[in-house]
């Protein structure tokens, strides 16, 4: 195959990747988009296999079989509630693959047309070290994110004295190493870059609290794209550069949307130390009283309402309550109640997590609405059913300038006729902020596990 043919085929696969993302603009075209992505990948791989210096097909087949089997097995078995950790784990693999490809290019530059070992152009070495560094940071950063999401590492932010100075020093060290590597090209330099970057990846993610994970996971998504880009520059491969840039900007946009959903700057998230799961079971109530009710009370209220808006949050995912919730909604609908769902941008542990869980429970996607689509409907709504969400409904984000979450866009559930709030205890949300919603006259707390509460309501409705 001539170089031009190969370049042309790589272009086709890049266009198919763009179409894969384009398809996601609507659920009706999304599956077709995914197909485009698969075809694009097949074309890119086949083009590379047809290159004259790619000879050992058996070795490659073995590697693809090992990886492909593992990937298929994991993807078919994973529970949708565990999606965030799965994505984090997959990001780490892209990062590690980037490090290995950069290593291969360093030890056998002639295979990539980069010259002989020890005589690689300085520009290529800089590109190579950027790909390596971003890849290594993505690798360890994603592993830490995976650990936090899976509960292997505490979700609390880990901060120590002088943390930012250590990171800064490591960052400067990395730049110095890259300059040294690009001028003298020692093998030691390459491995030092890998080592420092691996360490930096750990230190960057460790101080970030569990509930900031939507930002972190989007950011690592972005990094994995930039790592691919760095490798694309090293190998002068436009397909890699285009795809890396698509992924990089996609992750960056998602991080931006998540930050905006929390009204926090990207830097304050990255610097970390915010939030952490508070375990305080009971708070000082003062003279405020809380009205609490049973499943039977809740079913009575909702049965007699004209419209109910359900506000799900991470707690619903933890309790695996989505199926029971949908059953409850179906019963209400059969009794003539209009039921809709309101999703806050940062509900869950990754962007769009709640939508996937509701879709898994067979909730039609046209009943599931975003914050700006539904927020205006709360004043005319009878019952808001908050399940597993907390901070995203906290009215003090609008009224109390001293609140840490002041300015965060929230769902105006308190404007509904009645608010039913399913919660295990009165503990505050991850931001550590008390929610005045609990003490309002039109709020009824339903204390208990989200799933059991839904099942209780189903029984009462039947």
């Amino acid at each position, binding site marked *: 195959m001539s170089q031009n043919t190969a370049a042309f085929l790589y272009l086709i696969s890049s266009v198919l990747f763009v179409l894969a993302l384009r398809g996601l603009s609507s659920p009706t075209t999304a599956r077709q988009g995914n197909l485009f992505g698969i075809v694009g990948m097949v074309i890119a791989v086949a083009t590379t296999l047809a290159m004259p210096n790619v000879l050992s097909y058996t070795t490659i087949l073995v590697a693809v079989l090992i*990886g*492909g089997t593992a990937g298929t097995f994991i993807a078919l078995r994973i529970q949708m509630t565990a999606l965030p950790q799965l994505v984090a784990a997959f990001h780490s693999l892209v990062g590690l693959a980037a490090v290995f490809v950069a290593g291969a290019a360093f030890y056998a530059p002639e295979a990539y047309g980069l010259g002989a070992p020890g005589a690689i152009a300085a520009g290529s070495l800089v590109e190579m070290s950027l790909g390596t560094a971003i890849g290594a940071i993505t690798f360890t950063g994603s592993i830490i994110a995976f650990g936090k999401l899976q509960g292997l590492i505490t979700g609390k932010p880990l901060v120590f004295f002088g943390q930012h100075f250590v990171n800064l020093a490591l960052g400067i060290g990395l730049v110095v190493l890259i300059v040294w590597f690009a001028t003298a090209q020692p093998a030691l330099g390459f491995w030092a870059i890998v080592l420092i970057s691996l360490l930096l990846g750990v230190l960057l993610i460790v101080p970030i609290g569990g509930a900031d994970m939507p930002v972190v996971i989007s950011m690592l998504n972005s990094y994995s794209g930039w790592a691919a880009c760095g490798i694309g520059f090293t190998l002068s491969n436009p397909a890699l550069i285009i795809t890396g840039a698509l992924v990089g900007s996609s992750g960056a946009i998602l991080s931006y949307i998540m930050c905006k959903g929390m009204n926090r700057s990207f830097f304050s998230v990255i610097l970390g130390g915010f939030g952490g799961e508070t375990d305080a079971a009971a708070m000082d109530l003062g003279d405020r009283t809380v009205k609490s009710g049973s499943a039977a009370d809740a079913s009575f209220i909702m049965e007699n309402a004209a419209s109910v808006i359900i506000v799900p949050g991470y707690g619903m995912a933890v309790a695996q309550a989505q199926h029971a919730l949908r059953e409850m909604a179906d019963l209400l609908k059969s009794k003539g109640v209009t039921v809709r769902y309101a999703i806050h941008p940062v509900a869950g542990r990754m962007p769009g997590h709640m939508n996937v869980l509701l879709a898994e429970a067979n909730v039609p996607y046209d009943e599931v609405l975003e914050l700006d689509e539904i927020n205006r409907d709360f004043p005319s709504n009878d019952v808001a059913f908050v399940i597993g969400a907390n901070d995203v409904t906290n009215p003090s984000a609008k009224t109390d300038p001293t609140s840490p979450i002041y300015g965060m866009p929230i769902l105006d559930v308190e404007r509904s006729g009645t608010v039913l709030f399913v919660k295990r205890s009165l503990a505050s949300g991850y931001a550590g902020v008390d929610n005045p919603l609990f003490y309002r006259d039109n709020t009824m707390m339903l204390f208990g596990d989200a799933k059991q509460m839904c099942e209780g309501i189903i029984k009462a409705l039947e």
Partner: protein
Amino acid sequence: MASEKFTQGMERLAESAADVASQADALAAQAAALVAPAAPAASGGTTFVMLFTIFVLAVFVGYYVVWNVTPALHSPLMSVTNAISSVIIVGALIAAGPADWHLSKVFGFVAVALASVNIFGGFIVTQRMLQMFKKKK
């Protein structure tokens, strides 16, 4: 009568298209002639600038395409971008390609396996998610 006119029109269109094509050919040849002597002289710089141009344009394409993604599909967006970023397998295949074993081939082998986990896993999990998004009956 009308169809005759139509055929004539089409013929004229075809002629002018052929004209344009031959002009484009000539233009391409000229461009190639212009670039040919310059390319070997400054291959490093020119290649980088060309690649960087592609990079910047691709970032813009990504920016506009991703803003059009509906928020409900942000999770599938993450998993599909994860799958396509594994196109890094292209570099891994070249490293694993040579017939004889040495360090870079080992690296290539590992990278091919890692990227394959992502390609298969990423596309399959995206498909699983998208399968679940259904309209109201």
